[in-house]
């Protein structure tokens, strides 16, 4: 499983190429869905067709009569804890007497062929008593909805009171905003292969996930196995974006393998994938901004309601992220914010790129446009007047001690040239409506909109999401081991860059990504460059120090005088120089390092506390063409300047920024899981629309590189910021083009033309 990484010198700061790139372009890279084992069975899941129902009776016996079926399991077959979850363990492995959302797992089968599985699922008899749904989050906030779970319908509520919330301004603007339910829509659907141990007392699982060790913990609890008997290896991951932070098919697949004593592979189809993972929370946000006549914000009032769906997932943390980012990247001395995350019979929601901040940002950036209009200021000036700076106190009382180049991001973005005008004879595919050929050039108006955002990086509220890495060096060849999920972001490129820079070696091997080393934490919250990067750095530095000590002993030098410079060991006097490769001959080192970020703390009852580790910032300016008659939008250009700390691999950073912008564009004008009274209406790529290459705008970007002193490598995570403020930038551009009230995303044709 080791991959050789010898293509280039490839140190920090270079656009080193992916070590897995050749395998991926050849179609040889093994995604979890490509896993295969001799004698393997297929697994499949029976899901509830109802959003809320009591299970009167389940009869699995007809399924066992289908030729080729080896096992059928329900909640009665779960040997350990019947529920799981990332924060609150409230989600049933299989429904236990009641289903609370459409698509909730009820049973699973193992059989010799996927088609046999389908027939077996169809043969299972489930008698439901359909119950009324709780689908309006406001009913839960008001306490009017009947409780649909023993733990009630409120996952969490929290307020923030900061400064003097009674302060009023010369100008007040307010609005109520809505964000739809977005799907992560990774291309590689959920898949896993579970291989039981011969003694039936353990299981090996190959799975696409964001956090191997957390999966293992939850699986071991549900399977009633010791943690060390559940061994996880990362199967190739076809994108994640938050949707693989919760477990999905992990327990089911392992349970079927243990039950049958045979390897079992499970893979969701696209429709099942829509039901099989959590989504971005739909939210309603009300905000009122008070400002002085010269544009300075003096008070923000806000109210957030996040619809968490049937089970908790990470709703509690999403809520805190949302409310603590209510001010956006702006100074705000006084604030009062309240927020709820509630339980409904809608699909469960949890992590998606941006994690609660997307919802806050759409609201505060819509407000900034309103404020600019009310004051007669430009969208740029109103943001510059309020731009947050290092040293400011944010509404949680925490002092902003991250590098905070907000004004620079805005100014650099503002200086990016505008795209050329549409012209008199544009290509028909460049018009709103694209291949539908519906828009006529004379019906099209152009608009420009802004969005600026702040995003916390790493986990918050006292959680110690440490990362572990192991570095071995033998004869000058380095092998790195970590459990960091590579989901496409490029940590497998970055880690060898770190090792080459620290140790002066060329050849770096990557060991298999599995649970055979300590946790790396989750590939989420824009945290792995900082956290796992810090762990790899620490492990490599420990090896370097031991190596230099050995070289000193061998050559009669003082360790303190030696250092690695490029690919040589050098003495500070200049008397000794030797290539690392030569100096390392016959030497062997093995060091492991855990990187912990500084401690954070929970919020108090007034939402005060140093709850976040660090922050990153970005500005976006969108140019859109809108067919006002048909309500169609084409995003022409996105200009952006992003605070990245330090670009450790500029090519990877570019890819994250362009990819994040595409996802934010999707939320702005295309992507929404439509849910009616708990029923999902569009669980397919035919009906849930994703941006194609024809929808993608020109992206013109600038990187703001001010090394972050708190970060081990000076770099900030770059994954989430690109997708956050581009959404309001596009919505604001549509508002500017049309003059329509645009208070929700995605912006639908009817929001523009009706």
């Amino acid at each position, binding site marked *: 499983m080791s991959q050789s990484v010898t293509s280039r010198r490839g140190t920090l700061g270079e656009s080193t*190429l*992916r070590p*897995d*790139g*050749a395998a*991926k*372009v*050849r*179609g*040889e*890279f*093994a*995604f979890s*869905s*490509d896993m*295969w084992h001799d004698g393997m069975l297929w697994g499949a899941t029976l899901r509830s067709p109802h959003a809320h129902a009591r299970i009167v009776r389940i009869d699995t016996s007809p399924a066992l009569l289908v*030729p*080729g079926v080896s096992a059928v399991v329900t909640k009665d077959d779960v040997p350990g804890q019947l529920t799981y979850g990332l924060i609150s363990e409230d989600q049933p492995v299989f429904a236990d007497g009641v289903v609370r959302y459409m698509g909730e797992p009820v049973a699973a089968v193992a059989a010799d*062929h*996927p*088609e*046999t599985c389908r027939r077996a699922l169809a043969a299972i008899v489930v008698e439901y008593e359909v119950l009324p749904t709780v689908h309006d989050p406001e009913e839960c906030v008001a306490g009017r909805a009947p409780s649909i779970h023993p733990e009630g319908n409120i996952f969490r509520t929290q307020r923030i009171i900061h400064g003097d919330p009674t302060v009023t301004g010369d100008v007040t603007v307010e609005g109520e905003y809505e964000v739809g339910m977005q799907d992560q829509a*990774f*291309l*590689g*659907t959920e898949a896993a292969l579970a291989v039981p141990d011969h003694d039936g007392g353990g299981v090996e699982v190959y799975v696409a996930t964001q956090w191997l060790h957390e999966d293992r913990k939850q699986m071991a609890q549900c399977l009633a196995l010791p943690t060390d008997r559940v061994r996880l290896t990362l199967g*190739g*991951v*076809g*994108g*994640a*974006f938050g949707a693989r932070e919760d477990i999905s098919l992990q327990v089911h697949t392992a349970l079927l393998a243990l039950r049958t004593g045979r390897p079992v592979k499970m893979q969701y*189809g*696209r429709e099942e994938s829509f039901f099989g993972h959590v989504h971005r929370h739909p939210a309603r946000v009300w905000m009122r901004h008070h400002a002085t006549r010269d544009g300075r914000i003096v008070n923000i009032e806000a109210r957030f309601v996040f619809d968490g769906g049937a089970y908790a997932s990470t709703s509690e943390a999403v809520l805190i992220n949302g409310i603590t980012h209510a001010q956006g990247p702006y100074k705000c001395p006084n604030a009062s914010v309240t927020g709820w995350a509630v339980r409904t019979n809608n699909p469960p929601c949890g992590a998606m790129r941006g994690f609660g901040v997307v919802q806050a940002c759409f609201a505060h950036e819509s407000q900034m446009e309103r404020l600019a209009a009310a004051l007669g200021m430009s969208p740029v000036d109103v943001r510059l007047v309020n731009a947050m700076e290092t040293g400011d106190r944010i509404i949680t009382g925490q002092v902003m001690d991250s590098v905070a180049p907000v004004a620079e991001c805005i100014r650099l973005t503002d200086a990016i040239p505008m795209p050329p005008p549409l012209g008199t004879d544009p*290509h028909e*595919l460049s018009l709103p409506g694209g*291949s539908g050929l519906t828009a006529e050039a004379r019906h099209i108006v152009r608009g420009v909109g802004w969005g600026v955002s702040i995003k916390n990086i790493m986990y918050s509220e006292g959680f110690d999401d440490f990362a572990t890495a192991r570095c071995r060096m033998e004869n000058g060849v380095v092998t790195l081991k970590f459990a960091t999920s590579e*989901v*496409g*972001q*490029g940590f497998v490129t970055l880690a060898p860059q770190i090792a080459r820079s620290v140790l002066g070696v060329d050849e770096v091997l990557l060991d298999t990504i599995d649970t055979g080393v300590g946790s790396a934490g989750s590939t989420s919250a824009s945290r792995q460059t900082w956290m796992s990067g810090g762990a790899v750095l620490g492990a490599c530095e420990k090896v370097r120090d031991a190596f230099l000590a050995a070289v000193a002993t061998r050559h009669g030098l003082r360790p303190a005088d030696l250092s690695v410079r490029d690919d040589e060991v050098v003495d500070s006097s200049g008397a000794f120089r030797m290539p690392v490769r030569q100096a390392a001959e016959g030497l062997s080192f093995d060091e492991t390092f855990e990187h912990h970020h500084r401690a954070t703390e929970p919020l108090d009852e007034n939402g005060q506390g140093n709850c976040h580790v660090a922050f990153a910032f970005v500005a976006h300016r969108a140019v859109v063409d809108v067919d006002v008659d048909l309500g169609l939008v084409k995003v022409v250009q996105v200009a952006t300047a992003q605070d990245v700390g330090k670009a450790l691999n500029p*090519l*990877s950073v*570019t*890819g994250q*920024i*362009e*990819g*994040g*912008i*595409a*996802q934010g564009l999707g939320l702005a004008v295309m992507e929404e899981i439509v849910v009616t009274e708990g029923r999902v209406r569009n669980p397919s*790529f*035919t009906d849930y629309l*994703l941006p*194609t*290459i*024809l929808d*993608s705008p020109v*992206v013109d970007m600038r990187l703001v590189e001010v090394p972050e002193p708190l970060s081990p490598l000076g770099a900030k995570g770059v994954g989430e910021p690109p997708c956050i403020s581009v959404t309001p930038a596009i919505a604001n551009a549509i508002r500017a083009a049309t003059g329509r009230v645009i208070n929700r995303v995605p912006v639908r044709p009817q929001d523009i033309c009706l």
Partner: protein
Amino acid sequence: MNNETYTLSVNGTDMPVHDAWVGESLLYVLRERLGLPGAKGACEQGECGSCTVILDGEAVCSCLVMAAAAVGRSVATVEGLNPDGSLTDVQQAFVDEGAVQCGFCTPGLVVAVHHLLDSTPVPDAMQVKEALSGNICRCTGYGRIIAAVDRVVEVRKGSRA
């Protein structure tokens, strides 16, 4: 259920398919029976292009083609692009330009780009976008993919001149 035997011509080689259920898609048979997992399944509806293969010279979504319907026709997959193990110019450009992140869409895109450039050696920007609009990539936002195609077109132009 599994009782059909037939032969498919894949990448120039006749490959027997034994004891197959006749309802299997070409994608399933390539991946699960013939050991060719390069084509990926991501939507089962012909919307995403991850499963793109060439069938009698046309780019198709192999999830929408019944395997049995490909009997007597020529199937070309990503595995057939570089039998000697080297990378094609398109594949190399995808790596060099950062067009690969998670890589799930990549084999389908590589097949689609080769198909485009075989028929249209010097496409304009809109022709590139139109030809690849059936291939969804969720990671890259497409910018580096366009850069990769541009690089191949430029290099090929240079080598023809």
